[in-house]
């Protein structure tokens, strides 16, 4: 009995000790899991953002091994000293291993930490990155390919302009829309109706508007010779001033300064649909025999072109807005598609120098065609053979003709 009692007490004590120990272990484990539920991101590297004017640092890191265990993102912390307090500068979504801190001062040294955070706001900090400073660069190497290809095309354009100056003649295909300009102006003259010229709805800082104004200059010269009335409603004040000066000079150079009126070119409004309402009103009331739409257009293109169509006007349009081209093609008699808009002024001038620049464009087209054909062939060979040689060549061609976001 006595032995049984001792044994009972012994086992009870042992049981209590074991229970206490197990409980303790469990407690250690659970507090451990609370303290470090996530593995942190590693290999945090911060470096100056290349090809910029300074003020930016790129932070890169290796994703946390727990990326698939509910990590919601990475918080990027920054400090001017590894021992000072770090403050948040941004947040990168899960799966991201790169963040650009675009708010740095070039004279300061920075240290970074990346913190993985899960849905329960558990956080796990990385090691501190080595020190880094942002600095401005003198050349953006990401755009080297653009410089080379752009340089080649510009060189070709300048070469052909110089070549044309020496009297070399170039072949130029006929552009139906531009061939019809004289006919359209003649028709308006015969009918005794005005000619409406719309130079788009963007300002003079858009190259399409510049192209539109240069064409207006050529067209106005012919109009001056025919003594037809011209109406140029504009949606921008600077376009109005430029167009006014251009038309005036065209009349002077045509020897018809007396026929010029300041009312030919007038300002309407900057508002897109207010402008359309005014232009449609002019069309319906004055019934111009010819309408030119040359420049940058948006949703108003079809409203104007259809109204012009409904009054039976000859319509010549030109724009470099690909989305508006189908509307003009459907509603107008002639449409200058993309590059034809920019070629129009040179075409109408007939000057060898200007025509030479069009020849220079052909070099650009050859480069584009070669890149497309070679790229397509390489991708096809890579897809068929799976050879890494073709794959890397295809990637090289792709990189050569892409502007990589830095």
């Amino acid at each position: 009995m006595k032995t049984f009692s001792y044994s009972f007490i012994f086992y009870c004590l042992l049981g209590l000790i074991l229970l206490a120990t197990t409980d303790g272990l469990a407690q250690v484990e659970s507090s451990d899991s609370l303290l470090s539920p996530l593995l942190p991101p590693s290999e945090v590297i911060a470096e100056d953002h290349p090809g910029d004017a300074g003020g930016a640092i790129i932070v890169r890191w290796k994703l946390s091994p727990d990326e698939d265990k509910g990590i919601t993102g990475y918080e990027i912390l920054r400090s001017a000293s590894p021992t000072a307090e770090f403050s948040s500068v941004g947040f990168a979504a899960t799966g991201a291993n790169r963040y650009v801190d675009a708010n740095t001062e070039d004279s300061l040294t920075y240290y970074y930490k990346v913190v993985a955070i899960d849905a329960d706001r558990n956080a796990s900090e990385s090691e501190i990155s080595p020190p880094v400073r942002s600095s401005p660069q003198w050349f953006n190497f990401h755009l080297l390919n653009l410089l080379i290809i752009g340089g080649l095309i510009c060189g070709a354009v300048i070469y052909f302009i110089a070549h044309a100056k020496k009297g070399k003649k170039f072949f130029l295909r006929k552009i139906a829309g531009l061939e019809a300009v004289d006919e359209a102006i003649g028709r308006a003259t015969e009918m005794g109706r005005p000619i409406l010229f719309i130079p788009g709805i963007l300002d003079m800082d858009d190259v399409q508007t510049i192209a539109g104004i240069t064409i207006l200059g050529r067209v106005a010269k012919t109009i001056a010779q025919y003594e037809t009335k011209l109406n140029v409603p504009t949606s921008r004040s600077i376009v109005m001033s430029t167009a006014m000066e251009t038309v005036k000079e065209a009349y002077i150079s045509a020897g018809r300064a007396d026929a010029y009126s300041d009312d030919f070119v007038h300002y309407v409004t900057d508002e897109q649909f207010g402008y359309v309402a005014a232009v449609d009103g002019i069309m319906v009331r004055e019934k111009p025999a010819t309408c030119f739409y040359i420049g940058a257009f948006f949703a108003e293109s079809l409203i104007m072109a259809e109204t012009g169509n409904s009054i039976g006007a000859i319509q010549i349009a030109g724009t470099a807005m690909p989305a508006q081209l189908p509307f003009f093609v459907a509603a107008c008699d002639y449409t200058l598609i993309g590059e034809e808009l920019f070629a129009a002024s040179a075409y109408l001038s007939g000057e060898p120098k200007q025509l030479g620049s069009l020849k220079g464009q052909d070099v650009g087209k050859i480069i584009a065609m070669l890149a497309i054909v070679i790229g397509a062939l390489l991708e096809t060979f890579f897809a068929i053979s799976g050879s890494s040689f073709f794959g890397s060549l295809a990637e090289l061609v792709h990189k050569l003709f892409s502007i990589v976001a830095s």
Partner: protein
Amino acid sequence: MRRQIPLIITFIVGSVLIISVFIPHKPFGQLGENFSVYFDIIAVFAFILGAGNLLRVHGNRIYRKHKDWPYSVVTVAGFTVMMIAGLFKIGGSPGITGDLTEPGSMFEELYMYVFTPLMATMFALLAFFVASASHRAFRAKNKEATVLLLAAFVILLGRTPFGVKLTSWLPDPLSFLEIPNLASWIMSVPNMAGQRAIMVGIALGVIAMALRVILGVERTYLGADSE
């Protein structure tokens, strides 16, 4: 000299802006942005010219009882009322520092309840014009127009629930023939190829045009077409 100064300015500004694309370092890096701001400042002053021109042209029409002069009265009245409402901030916070767009201000009321509906009305006209233009463009007059008509028909049908239902019975190996898939293919292959060709042409045209302007070969915009 009257021609040369603008040409020199154009050449310097054009060249510097091209250089600034490749050189991010100060002072080049910020030039593009700065020139854009200068342009906006000039545009603000030019707006006075625009407003002056509007009042002059329509004032003359009213004064001379030009044909359709009542429309000019509406234009001048609309311009004047809007300008007074904006400048004097009638109905809103008092004083010149008050908020122009504060609910209850006359400018805001005119903008919201007169101007915006008028703009929406003009925009809505587009639906009718699209229908009339499509009616004309999609007539199967020749082979090209027939192809256009068929492509448009497939795309329109592919965007409707009826189009989805119509060919959803096709077995998996023939799923590429389902109308929505055909519509997507037309948009992403032949249509995209055509658009890209146009965009390549546009880019080259812009380069040549810009060079002509920068080098002073093209000077029509200055009111002269020869040296």
